[in-house]
């Protein structure tokens, strides 16, 4: 210890904008923020995304996909905060119960809790009612396919329930991390059609347009915002998560983000630029109605019905 150095380490690091103790340091800029200024910063950035991508317009009735986990809880909280004074807009929460024993019960009760405490209507739909079986039952011994099956069926059910309830927008809680992971997964799978966004689930006019207000916010900051606001939901991992390619991609990208700060933003910006250019490369397929459920699709059956069909056939066959 040399003279002039303090003998004990400073107990706190001050906020860069006020004398309060910082709770975080923004890694890209080195700026320290206290809870209040951090929350303000997040709110500003989310508002900016909403405006930049024109996510919400007058007269919208917004279905907020609410899993009950931390991201969708923060999304619902923020949309309520931004919009509850607007007479020309409506929001409601929409939860899909996939039927995952020992996991979904907690998130659903947490979804009910946050909706009730904000005074927002809450609709719950389930795989069991819609597809006749829970995800657990559909999967039997094919756990490695869990996230594919879960994702396809949930996306369709969210669309259908949003439309049935008069929604003009479907807002989801995807964070920057989620979006980057999806982009990387498309690349790792060599899925060019998906990179070019020609899948009907994204753009076709008969679908309720999806918006992702948290798409520029890192998952860690979404979680921290939830903690600051006292709405953080700490749940365990989905029991199927470890089978997912996404888990590996997530660790990999987190490693890259730590060693090369800013990687997530750079990947996302590059990917956005790429998809906006290759978007028109494939001819638009015309949409037909699924012969089983009537959902718009490009073949005879929509991907959800085709999947349920094949899972059921396999279940009977073995």
């Amino acid at each position, binding site marked *: 210890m040399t003279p002039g150095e303090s003998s004990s*380490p*400073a107990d*706190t*690091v001050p906020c860069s904008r006020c004398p309060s*103790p*910082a*709770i*975080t*340091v923004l890694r890209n800029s080195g700026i*320290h923020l206290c*809870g209040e200024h951090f929350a303000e910063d997040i709110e500003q950035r989310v508002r900016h995304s909403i405006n930049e991508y024109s996510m919400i317009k007058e007269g919208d009735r917004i279905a907020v996909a609410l*899993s009950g*986990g*931390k*991201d*969708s*809880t*923060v999304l619902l909280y923020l949309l309520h905060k931004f919009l509850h004074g607007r007479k020309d807009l409506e929001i409601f929460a929409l939860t899909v119960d996939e039927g995952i024993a020992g996991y979904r019960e907690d998130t659903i009760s947490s979804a009910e809790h946050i909706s009730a405490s904000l005074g927002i209507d809450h609709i719950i739909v389930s795989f069991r009612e819609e597809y006749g079986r829970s995800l657990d039952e559909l999967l039997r011994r094919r756990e490695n396919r869990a996230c594919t099956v879960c994702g396809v069926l949930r996306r369709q059910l969210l669309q259908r329930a949003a439309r049935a309830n008069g929604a003009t927008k479907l807002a989801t*809680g995807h964070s920057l991390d989620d979006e980057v992971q999806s982009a990387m997964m498309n690349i790792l799978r060599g899925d060019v059609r998906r990179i070019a966004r020609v899948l009907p689930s994204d753009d076709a006019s008969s679908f309720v347009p999806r918006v992702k207000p948290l798409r520029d916010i890192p*998952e*860690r900051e*979404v*979680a*921290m915002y939830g*903690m*600051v606001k006292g709405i953080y*939901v*700490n*749940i*365990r*991992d*989905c029991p199927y*998560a470890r089978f997912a390619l*996404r*888990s590996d991609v*997530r*660790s990999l990208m*987190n*490693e890259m*983000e*730590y060693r090369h700060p800013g990687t997530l933003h750079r990947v996302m910006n590059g990917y956005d630029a790429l998809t906006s250019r290759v978007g028109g490369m494939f001819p638009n397929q015309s949409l037909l109605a699924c012969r089983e459920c009537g959902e718009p699709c490009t073949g005879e059956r929509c991907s959800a019905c085709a999947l349920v069909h094949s899972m059921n056939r396999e279940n009977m066959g073995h």
Partner: protein
Amino acid sequence: MKIRYAQGRTDEISIDVTTIEQVLLQLEINPVEVIVSKNGHLVPEDAMVSNDDEIRIFRIVHGG
């Protein structure tokens, strides 16, 4: 220094005065994947910690 994980597990390690970030690296945890509180308050990764402190590590669970 006492370490609590959000899952309930606890750990005790001995450190020199250092940063939260260094403690996490010593525990082989990627700082990007966790949020840390020191003596009950959220702190940035460059906050200093000593053996008298108790830190709590919240792993960010995917999904939501």
